[in-house]
């Protein structure tokens, strides 16, 4: 299945900003993390289609996965 993967802040360094990537059906968000080489410890915020998600959440065709390190501001 096709998943849109978006990376932010330091995760972009040496990787990419946004890409369409293919994963086997039933893959979870964890598979995306492994695919792009971000560790669980580095991960701050995971969003699936603009909602906070978890790593074991199964993805569906066309989903958008957004990965952020822990960042903040205000």
């Amino acid at each position, binding site marked *: 299945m096709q998943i849109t993967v978006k990376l932010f802040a330091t995760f972009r360094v040496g990787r990419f900003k946004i890409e369409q990537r293919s994963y086997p059906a039933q893959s979870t968000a964890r598979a995306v993390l492994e695919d792009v080489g971000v560790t669980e410890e580095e991960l701050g915020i995971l969003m699936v289609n603009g909602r*906070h998600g978890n790593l074991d959440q199964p993805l569906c065709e066309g989903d958008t996965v957004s990965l952020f390190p822990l960042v903040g501001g205000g």
Partner: protein
Amino acid sequence: MDKIFRVDMSKLTTSIEDVPAKWAGLGGRALTSTIVAEEVVPTCHPLGPNNKLVFAPGLLSGTAAANSGRMSCGAKSPLTGTIKESNAGGTSAQQFARMGIKALIIEGLPKDDKWYGLHLTKDGATIVAADDLAGKGNFAVIEALEAKLGKKTGVVTIGPAGEMKMAMANISVKDPDSKIRSHGRGGLGAVMGSKKIKYISIDSEGAPGVTVADPEKFKQAARTFAKALLDHPVSGEGLPTYGTNVLVNILHEAGGLPTRNFTLGQFDGHDKICGETMHDTIVKRGGKPKHGCHAGCIIQCSQVYLNEQGKYVTSGFEYETIWGMGANCCIDNLDDIAEADNIMDDIGVDSIESAVMFGVAMEAGILPFGDGKGVIRLLGEIGKGTALGRILGGGTGHVGKAYGVTRVPVVKNQGIPAYDPRSVKGIGITYATSTMGADHTAGYTIATNILNVGGYVDPLKKDGQVELSRNLQIATAAVDSTGMCIFVAFPALDIPECLPALIDMINARFGINLTGDDVTNLGKSILKIERQFNIEAGFTNKDDRLPEFFNFEPVPPHNVVWDFSDEEIDAFWNF
């Protein structure tokens, strides 16, 4: 021994008073709000003779504690009609603390129509003539005072907007690079303008410095505290690299980035104005991606932004400003936003209130959405005080009324900041219930709703939001009293040693034994003092509400509305 400096502008006299015992344990917001509550008639006109303008450094300002250089300024707000505390970085807090000035209270109004300056030394305040600087922008005031009094002189100043008593006028504070930090919110610049004070100059030469009761204990606690700040990924890495503007993309992804005057939750042009793009632009042009707003800041979330020619445009280029002029006004040109930020610093207007106001002005048809050059032109009109400039300078609610706009994002007449309360519900509770009017810093639920700091509370559900906002507002009121930057809250929420180290520093500084409960109780008592002032000024629970349109206009992409009942909101005050 700390003193209170008091200035009576009606008689043009100054005096030095001992600190009353009841104020001894207070600093920052706790002290400004206590003084305003005790000495200002709640029903007074904010620009009349009975309002007072109070400055107080935090409890830890002037010490070696990291990030302790914030100055609180308080009064009755001409924008909201409520009590107000607005804090800023810059050099003034540490100067005040080292000079032993616990608070500066400015009262009364002069009878004549002249402009005055206030010169502070460790020995007292002197009122001087300042007609020569009337009409000048803040950068020119700082330059003139440095030329006359020396580079080390601290400066607190108002621009033309403050002189004209506009409700969105701020008070500017010189930073370590002779640029500007601001007591932004609530129109405090208009209060200073009403008292005909153009500037305060601070000469801290020969200041006795801050005495610490237990230096060894202080040193240890300060080290633990600084380590927590540097160890936490938000304060130690994210903020120094991308600044607060890292939030544009996060809020865009979460659908909580108010866009086109709060009609959308995402902005198509987000990539052009986001923190990542800004970082790359600053580095490419030879600016500084890292920069502190006061000496002793180890987070360094500020930055110095240059134009294409490599010339200084602005520093402290914040998410709120970039969101507001960017997404909210649909301007996707970072250079235009930076130029607007520079003008806002110079004429002395709050960049949040201005940006929210421009969203309403665009909806009113005064200028089209996306018109960055138009914003720059109209800021010029505000600085000159043209008829239109005066209307705009009154702030968001003022422009909404003048043009019959119904989508006016304010609470207690103060513009709503950079997080949509429909899709980030905790912050909506803060906007509604804060004693300050809509203010994200009063209880920054974004940490837990969006950033996974201090746990996680789902931003799209109502569950847990009132409690989250309550706990954060109580903690924030206490932190605002220490002189600490509010960003110490990120490590404090996650690293167990951080908050105890902060309390240990206060204890070591004053030779006292506060516990965590004492600090929580201080936060609660500040909120209650402020709320009581507002009640006596005529506010009721009916004022603790968001504008009606949030109830019936769903915001995409999640298509959610603001759905808290009155009873649910009012439960905030059950403590």
